[in-house]
């Protein structure tokens, strides 16, 4: 087990204290009319704030300053246009020395993944602060639908290290979420061996049971799965999620193909990204990240603001973990 994953800094902030956080150079957040989703964008200090309009959230023709939108269904095209927009509008062409904040709340996962891949791998960004605003509740509890319309699970652009058609011994690690139809579709589409990661502790106490209720109603066989096929990671701690993924994959050392599917909380998705960032070039197995793409994401399904989380992914820590993975002896000394 690699405990270094737990070394990344994280903290909670009272919502009323968010204005006290030191100013950033660039804040990327999601455009939304929901108070929770727009909270960071409206309150965190930053020289440049860009609110991203995602087509899936169904906001059209938004007439506001510092809003970015682009009509495409491809997350990589959207992000490449965003980077161009930042250069043309704010003269931001190098990101390496900037203090960057990204608000995870409301961010559509495939766009988040591709943005982070571009920033960390191509733009060589060293450090990003991530913010996440916890809800008090989801409006329809266990029946809350986050995604609507037709959905299809497929690899996130840039996160497909290899076709899984050649590997019979694939493992899908599913960060479980609420949406029954989405779970059902993944369950049907992905016939390989599955490992479920549940959000526990959950964001709010009742959310764990709501999550379990949905997962079990889709696939009753999960109830009879041995504990070896189930893991638990804090829904609000990306580093704990990355740590748990490391633990799962380490136990399955004979595998040649691992697929990650983060459909739980956004901090969980960030944890899955972090695991990918550190491990994708290890060469021991192919890593793919898949996601249930859907035409419509429900942008207004939560109520209230509980706490705000700040997570920091510092590339030097990531590199250190990468090194310890290559040289396990270093890991033992830490």
């Amino acid at each position: 087990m690699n405990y270094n994953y737990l070394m990344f800094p994280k903290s909670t902030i009272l919502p009323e204290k968010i204005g006290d956080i030191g100013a950033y150079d660039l804040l990327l957040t999601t455009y939304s009319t929901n108070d929770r989703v727009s909270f960071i964008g409206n309150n965190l200090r930053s020289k440049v704030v860009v609110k991203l309009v995602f087509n899936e959230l169904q906001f059209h023709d938004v007439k506001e300053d510092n809003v970015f939108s682009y009509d495409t269904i491809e997350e990589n095209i959207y992000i490449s246009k965003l980077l161009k927009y930042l250069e043309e509008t704010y003269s931001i062409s190098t990101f390496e020395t900037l203090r960057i904040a990204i608000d995870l709340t409301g961010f559509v996962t495939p766009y988040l993944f591709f943005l982070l891949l571009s920033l960390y791998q191509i733009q060589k960004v060293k450090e990003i602060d991530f913010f996440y605003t916890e809800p008090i509740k989801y409006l329809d509890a266990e029946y809350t639908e986050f995604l609507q319309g037709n959905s299809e699970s497929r690899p996130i652009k840039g996160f497909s290290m290899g076709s899984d058609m050649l590997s019979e011994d694939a493992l899908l690690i599913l960060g479980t979420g609420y949406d029954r139809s989405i779970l059902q579709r993944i369950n049907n589409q992905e016939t390989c061996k599955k490992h479920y990661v549940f959000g526990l502790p959950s964001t709010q106490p009742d959310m764990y049971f709501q999550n379990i209720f949905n997962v079990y109603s889709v696939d009753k066989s999960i109830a009879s799965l041995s504990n070896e096929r189930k893991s638990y990671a804090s829904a609000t701690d990306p580093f704990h999620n990355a740590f748990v993924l490391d633990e799962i994959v380490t136990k399955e050392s004979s595998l040649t193909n691992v697929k990650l599917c983060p459909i739980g909380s956004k901090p969980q998705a960030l944890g899955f990204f972090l695991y990918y960032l550190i491990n994708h070039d290890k060469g021991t197995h192919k890593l793919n990240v898949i996601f249930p793409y859907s035409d419509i994401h429900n942008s207004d399904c939560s109520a209230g603001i509980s706490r705000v989380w700040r997570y920091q992914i510092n590339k030097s820590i990531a590199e250190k973990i990468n090194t310890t993975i290559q040289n396990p002896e270093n890991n033992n000394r830490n």
Partner: protein
Amino acid sequence: MVNYANPFKNSKAKDLNTDQINEYWVNYPGLNIAKEIIAPHVSKPIIIKGSKGTGKSHIFLYHSISIVKERPENKDKNLVELINDDGFVAVYIKMHSTLSHRFQGNEVDDKQWIIIFENYLNIYMAIKTLEQLKYLIEKTESIDQHLFIKQVNAKIMPSYGEDQLKSIDDLQRILIGILTEIDHNVNDSAMYLKIDPVSIPFNTSNLVTEMPKLLFDVIPSLGSNSHFIYLIDEIEDFSENQQRYLNTLIRSFSSPISIRLGTRLYGHKTDETLTSEIIKYGAEYMEIKLDDYYKIYSPEYKELCEQIVLKRLIAYKSIDKAPSPNDISSFFDSSFESGVTINKTTSKLKDRLKSNLKRVKLSNKEINDIVEPLQSDDIYIESEKIMYFYKLMSKLKSFVFVELVKVAHTVSDDNLDFVKYKGKWSKHIKQIVLNLHSKPLYSGFDCYVYLSGGIVRNLLDMLSETFDLSYSYREEPFQKNHKISLNSQSEGISTFSKWYYQDAIAMCKYPERTKQFIDRLGLFFHRNFYSEKPSEVETATFFYDENALLESQREVIEDATSHSLLVEIKPRRAKNAREEKKQYQLIVTLSPLWNLTHTRRSSVELTKLFISALFSDNIDDFSNYLKQRLGSCEFPFQTKGNGQFYTSPEQLTFL
């Protein structure tokens, strides 16, 4: 934690291991699947279509060489013996649902993508072929594998030196290397918005069309009529453009190589090739629809179901001895055989009649006088009388006491019309009574067979659900002298039905619109079935004039059909009319959601008005249409209608 083995778990062929694929195999009664579906003697490509769960993958896997060689009788045989036994060798190649998305977008030209896809598919098929045959080639002493590789080198991959390509291992390594490079370039194209072509110094399509021939050339003592068959499963996952390449590829096969393509009913999206030519059905390829073999009331289908269940039960070791088909029925309690006791003093149909009569301002005494001649010690006889009374009552111009009591007294066995009415409606009325009293409607093995809707996987999944429930109620399911209770059966079937609906909707292309359509259709059939004066018996079939549908409405019906929520049956032709109208049934598997029977006797026409109400965005349009349409069937038999309005099966409660 559950710690027992459910014999019906793993209903998908893909979830079975090699031994189970062989062990659970059942040939369709009266049909030689190897000869008529795999049909090695047919050199034309065959597209094998079937609804999900009709056994396409099991058929393909069972006939593939990796599974064939593992059968006990084949364990010692070499490749030559196996091919000579069956007259063919088949390799199974499964496609993956993510395939179509990987080879498109990223601002890369479609033409460039299709070239990359062509190479990828060809190499992938070659890798899978070698993977499945390598062990057998090595095991067969008479095959000169060095000559085979030498031929591959000379005729397909001449740019490789002899030292690079000495063995099957070398060939596999080269091909996997190219595939991996393509994978990397495809992934990188997302970031750089362009794709670097992989340099491949040979024509990859020759790997698919020529390599098996080269193999056959080096196999001595091979029967002259031996065939090599590719079994490609799940081609519905190909995009239309990718299918165009497949159509181009299948044209280039010649004897002894042929191909079988497995797909869902609407999974073959185009007949065009890459050069926009059309591959001709009949002349250039053939089609087999598995659903045509699986008719739920045919004795062959029942026998197939029995055999499938028997195989599972035999593998389920806790059974004392191998059971026979007759044993299967004995494991189930059956309501229609054993009878369900209903306390007559709580007859809900009678209560409903009284309450209806109260609504037309009759006094309690008048109501009792009307109901009295309809009463009987037998709740079913009483119910038949009440329902017949409703029929007569609906013809009255007004509901005055004198008329009503007179009508009530005409309801007796002396009335020939009543006797005729009973003949037609008694089974239907029994269902109404059972439903009103919340008694199990579905029971007995035959019922499972019918409710499977011709999809054998549904049968297994329903039995699996029932087994779990029965086991948890300590009924010892499928053990000698133990019966699965009516409740376990009914609950198991209903739970499966809900799951089936949810599962199918989740996979639909237009989930919301398709669910709304099916919900409304189901509700209409339910309201009609359980009305006081049903117009038709056991209706869950509809037909319509194709011209009456908008494109968006046609899409929904196609979506529902391709996900086995509707079943297309033979078209209906009105008397003296030339045109045929398309006809569909709500799949019987969904019947429990609306408490309908599994039988389908009559059909209703979806008129323009009906279609518009079914698809309307405004739920009130449907509500109003339903009231008007069922006004003559539901008390008080006015076109204005009455009754509570339900929107989905979850909200459905009768009375």
